[in-house]
């Protein structure tokens, strides 16, 4: 008994430094951010306490931020319903063992390795209104009337930034799923085959249910990644034209670093953190049941 308590103590002591560092660089800054959100503060000079006014403004008056949240939800939707299904299909095909499996795996993963700055520039060239590849293709097909300044038009600017995001991370999710599928024991498939299951049936009855823990990770990454998306929007449109492609983090950036509104920017930052945490919790609980089922096997 004594030795058990002793071990617990030493475990606690050894965990303490890690916990302390974690608190110091993750937990404490979150609360400091929330605290700064209560002030009107320009980064230097006096901090005026204004209570919850920043948060009130955030939820009630800020049309731009609301549109930003809407955009981030659209992006989350695109990740969830376009990116992940593509990744899953690719992963299943690759894991089944096609020719040049390694080659394709590398090809699909290449965009993940390239810096988003480079990919952003690449897509800027593709979507350019004057010499862009997309417009050139449309023109050569005789579809001139559909050619437009994709990133300069309010209707298409945000979609223009969503496409590269979806495209870049397909390979990333594919690789996680591919690894997950590879770790499913092959005897289950053999049993299914003996029972006469076809490919579609094995996919829906064996692969996907057993892949649930991995899918949960992918869904969490995709959704949280969408909510805090920043790089492509910043590089490709800067949030414009007229905030049409702004997402919460670019708006926060503008407030913090261009308008010098540190208090209000902090309130927005805190909201983004909360939003991400809340969503991860929801995903956790949604997947709980199917995950339990998967681990039971």
């Amino acid at each position: 008994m004594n030795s058990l308590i002793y071990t617990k103590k030493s475990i606690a002591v050894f965990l303490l430094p890690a916990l302390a560092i974690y608190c110091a660089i993750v937990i404490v800054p979150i609360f400091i951010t929330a605290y700064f959100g209560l002030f009107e503060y320009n980064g230097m000079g006096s901090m005026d306490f204004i209570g919850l006014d920043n948060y009130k403004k955030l939820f009630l008056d800020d049309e731009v931020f609301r549109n930003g949240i809407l955009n981030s939800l659209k992006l989350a939707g695109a990740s969830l319903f376009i990116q992940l299904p593509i990744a899953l299909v690719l992963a299943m095909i690759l894991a089944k063992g096609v020719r040049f499996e390694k080659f394709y795996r590398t090809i699909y993963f290449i965009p993940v390795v390239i810096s988003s700055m480079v990919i952003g520039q690449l897509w800027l060239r593709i979507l350019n209104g004057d010499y862009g590849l997309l417009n050139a293709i449309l023109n050569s097909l005789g579809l001139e009337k559909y050619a437009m300044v994709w990133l300069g038009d309010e209707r298409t600017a945000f979609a223009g930034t969503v496409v590269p995001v979806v495209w870049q991370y397909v390979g990333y999710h594919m690789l996680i799923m591919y690894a997950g599928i590879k770790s499913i024991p092959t005897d289950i498939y053999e049993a299914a085959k003996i029972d006469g299951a076809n490919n579609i049936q094995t996919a829906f009855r064996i692969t996907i249910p057993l892949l649930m823990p991995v899918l949960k990770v992918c869904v969490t990454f995709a959704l949280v990644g969408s909510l805090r998306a920043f790089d492509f929007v910043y590089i490709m449109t800067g949030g414009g034209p007229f905030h049409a492609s702004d997402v919460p983090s670019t708006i926060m950036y503008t407030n913090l670093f261009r308008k010098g509104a540190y208090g209000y920017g902090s309130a927005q930052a805190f909201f983004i953190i909360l939003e991400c945490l809340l969503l991860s919790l929801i995903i956790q609980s949604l997947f709980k049941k199917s995950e339990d089922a998967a681990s039971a096997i």
Partner: protein
Amino acid sequence: MKQLIKKAVCFVLTGAMIFSLTACAKPNTPAAAEQAPAAAEEKITLNVWHQWSNDTNDLRKIYTQAVEKYMAEHSNVVIKTDTLDTEAYKTKINTAFASNSADVDVFYYWGGGKARKLVESGKLLALDDYVKDGTMDKILPGSTTAFTYNGKVYSLPMFSWNMVLYCNKEIFETNSVKIPETYDELLDACKKLSAKGVLPLVVGAKDGWNAAFVYEALALREVGAEKINGYLSGSAKFDDPGYAEAARKLQELTAAGAFGKSTLATSHDEADAAFLAGKAAMRLMGSWFAGAVYTNKDSKVQDKVVAAKIPMSAGNGSATEFKGGFIESFWVNGNTAHKEESAAFCKYINEVMGKAAAENSMGFAGWKGDIDTSKLNPLTLAIADQVKTQTGSVLAWDTSLDEAATVTHLEAVQALFGNKLTPEKFVEAHQ
């Protein structure tokens, strides 16, 4: 015994962790500043920051030479320089001055609305006591406007810029269009060039400041420098009818196809490149762009560019008013341990860099005295010639207004470009 060793190891490890954590907690010990005075000959280290981080930058070369010369002349002073790229540099200054800012003595910054925040929080050293030695007689009158707050001078001018309408005369000639001197001629030229499939005036409106150049140029002619400067300094309202008229003219130009259809998706870099590649007839830019016309390796317009003034209109502006002025310079941290030495270096570096920049076609010096014009390119000489007649000038608004007002202004101008705002709503946004 074993347990004892375990305990000892555990104790040492946690101790080490706690120590390293507390050591991290106070990073701002002013190490460099306090070492010096102990030395026998009292060497003083001045920490200087600027934003020319690229080795190929000409201003950086000039700066480095100037500092070497200064250290040779002042054996008791050691200059330690630190640089960062523009955006990162701004953030560095903000964070440094949000805390006690003990790491820097002299630093590069922008006057007008940018430095106002620093001045109002008492972060900068006023130089009035240090420039009584005749320094003020050496600088051009009116060149300290952007460095003066509440009657006190906080910095001295380095070099100025001026806005110019760069015109590719070859395009004008082949399309038999006249280089515009008035707004009506500009509108006419844009209509004609646009009809022939030539991009008339390339603007990188994706970058707010570049879009704002066009509006501010029009406003200068409609409203006049005095009233605009009043508005920018907060002493006059944004109520002159000329402001709305300038907005209307901007939209008239947009409708005439003056900026092409993709201007809102074009960055200022891309716009520069388009003009240098000979794809656009005009570019409204600062005098610093003159160098690129000759030295940029992709420039196809070396001998084809002429510098025109901002076209005139029937408004209140006068032809001798220009857009531009002195805005960049070196400042002294109010919290420095070496006020005297920092102020002396600040005076020195602003003067030397101002003159050197002027001799290398990068601007116009704010200091009296002979400037060697032999190395200047023809465009810069032409611009210098125009500026001689100057009676008044307005800085870029985004450097004069405070940060929040700047963002509002830039976004409103971009909205004008996209026909999202009527001139009336545009004026309202500024009030």
